[in-house]
């Protein structure tokens, strides 16, 4: 990149914090755009709380039918707390409309803008996604606070500061992981006209393997056919559980010590892998776009 090269025009002089100013502006613009549709937004946020109610009924029925005190180490209270916590992690890692939006910009040609203007598309998407999330949290904090307050008796005592810090770190990583996963899927739009079926398949896997549906500890006892390898242990190596299960399990004190460190490292490695994959997909995709159509 020759970003720092002074050009003939006097207005291109590099200034301090150039990159930061640009990021800030992208953030501000995306915030304003997001706020243009606030009504739709608030409704969407509230609707997210509906599915959890059905989940709670389901698990109440399961517990009363089995008469067990706990399932895979989860008491009835733990289950409720787990679901509420995955809602928080999903609020960080889910990226509604990201993949579809990228694919659409390729299809309708608006991606051209990022070829013509001196701006990086991936950075731009990231900045606007951060903005979307900030707006979302500003609205969602109220219903979240209300529900957590009402359900406070289901939660174990608040963990120590170190655990909270690791929990927050895992949330931040889950945001980045979710972003780069979906952005990479969206970039497939350079090769396929429509990515919605690919996104659907991804969502399905994600739903089953991220812990969104049930705590992944329940997979520990399920074999894979290979002796000594359970489905649970395979899932730990995949990126999915870091977008829902992992932060919730940290808060509930289900993971400790070296196991926790190992999981954090796996999560961080997945973030890097997907960020690189996303960048490669963008490079190759634009090269293909340039060669075939435009």
């Amino acid at each position, binding site marked *: 990149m020759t970003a720092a090269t002074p050009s003939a025009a006097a207005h291109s002089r590099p200034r301090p914090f150039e990159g930061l100013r640009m990021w800030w502006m992208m953030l501000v613009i995306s915030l*304003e755009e997001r706020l243009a549709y606030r009504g739709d937004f608030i409704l969407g946020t509230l609707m997210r709380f509906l599915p959890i109610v059905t989940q709670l009924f389901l698990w109440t029925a399961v517990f009363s039918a089995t008469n067990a005190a706990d399932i895979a180490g989860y008491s009835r209270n733990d289950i409720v707390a787990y679901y509420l916590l995955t809602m928080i992690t999903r609020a960080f890692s889910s990226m509604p409309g990201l993949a579809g939006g990228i694919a659409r910009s390729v299809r309708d040609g608006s991606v*051209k803008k990022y070829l013509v203007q001196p701006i990086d598309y991936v950075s731009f998407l990231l900045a606007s996604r951060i903005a979307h999330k900030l707006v979302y949290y500003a609205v969602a904090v109220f219903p979240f606070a209300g529900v957590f307050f009402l359900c406070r008796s289901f939660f174990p005592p608040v963990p120590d500061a170190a655990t909270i810090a690791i929990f927050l770190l895992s949330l931040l990583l889950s945001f980045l992981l979710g972003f780069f996963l979906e952005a990479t899927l969206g970039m497939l739009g350079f090769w396929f006209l429509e990515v919605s079926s690919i996104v659907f398949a991804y969502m399905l896997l994600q739903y089953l393997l991220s812990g969104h549906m049930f705590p992944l500890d329940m997979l520990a006892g399920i074999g894979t056919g290979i002796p000594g390898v359970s489905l649970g242990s395979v899932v730990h190596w995949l990126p999915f559980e870091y977008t829902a299960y992992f932060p919730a399990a940290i808060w509930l004190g289900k993971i400790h010590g070296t196991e926790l460190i190992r999981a954090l490292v796996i999560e961080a490695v997945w973030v890097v892998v997907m960020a690189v994959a996303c960048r490669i997909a963008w490079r190759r995709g634009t090269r293909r776009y340039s060669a075939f159509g435009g």
Partner: protein
Amino acid sequence: MVFPYTSPMHNSSQNAATHPQKSRVASREDAGREPVIAVESLAKEYRVYDKPEGLLASISGLFQRKSRIVHALRGVNLSVGRGEFVALLGPNGAGKTTFLKLLSGIITPTRGTAQVLGHVPWERVDDFRRRFALVMGQRNQLWWDLPAAESFRLHKEIYRIDTARFERTRDELVDMLDVRKILLQPVRELSLGERMKLELVAALLHEPQVLFLDEPTIGLDVVAQHTLHRFLTHVQAQRQMTVVLTTHYMKDVAALCERVVVITHGDILYDGSLDEIVDRFTTHKIVTLDLDDTPSLERMERFGFPCEIRGPQVILRIDRPRIAEVLPEILRSERVRDISVEDVPLEEIVAALFRSEAAQPVTTHQEART
């Protein structure tokens, strides 16, 4: 990248290609001498897949697809100097838009080379991208749901425009196009003409040295077209900007461009001034007569080809070389109330040019011009 110039005239630009730093100094000193756009044997081919009709054929298409090569551009040469205003004309599918996409680096060519402002466009280096602009279609640079003023602020950061300079340029452009009152309205609520004006402001904020316009007046009413013409003429002259536009409206060409490049079937068919086109490709004049009586067909055929006889009103097509002898004869033998002699409309000339196989591709244009 060294652009393969052969003419000694262009030595300075060869240096420019090897020493980009130097070229920028040079481009200000020898303005006009060094081409801003230099294109050599530029070709673009696409592979398109034919989609057969019918369900069965569609299913077999899943396994085996028929493809063919479309030659969008077939080895085009062009050189444009600083401050030139060039129109690309041609029928739909002639390769005009492909050409603009190549010059702005959206697509890569199959063969050939191009340099714009000393850069190969499709390498897409930021230094190049900060110095040109492309306006293509209506939903281009502006954010649909936000007021244009916000998109402008984003452009300020994207193109790193200094605050004072940004405000001055923005105010100047906004006043020229008289769009101040719509700056704070979401773009999606604006009319086509208003959006086009704001797109142009957005494109010119960073004071590009080269501007590409793809059908800027399409769908606009006469007043908006006229406003855009005045605006573009003014800004182009003021900034000594190099502009290349594609259009289907001869009014755009007549109002804006001294130089016309006609492309058909991916080849440059004509490159020269608009006057020259009229001169070279007009074979006849249109004479409109208002007579005292209603003439017969035979009576009129003596003078030329009668296009229309409606009562005493007659429209004749007369070969250009004959016009000087035929006109006095008409006035002598007919009782004429009114007479007018006009050139064939520009649209018709160009349409004929699009069809003509006789026109020679002109490639040595730049020598004559500079």
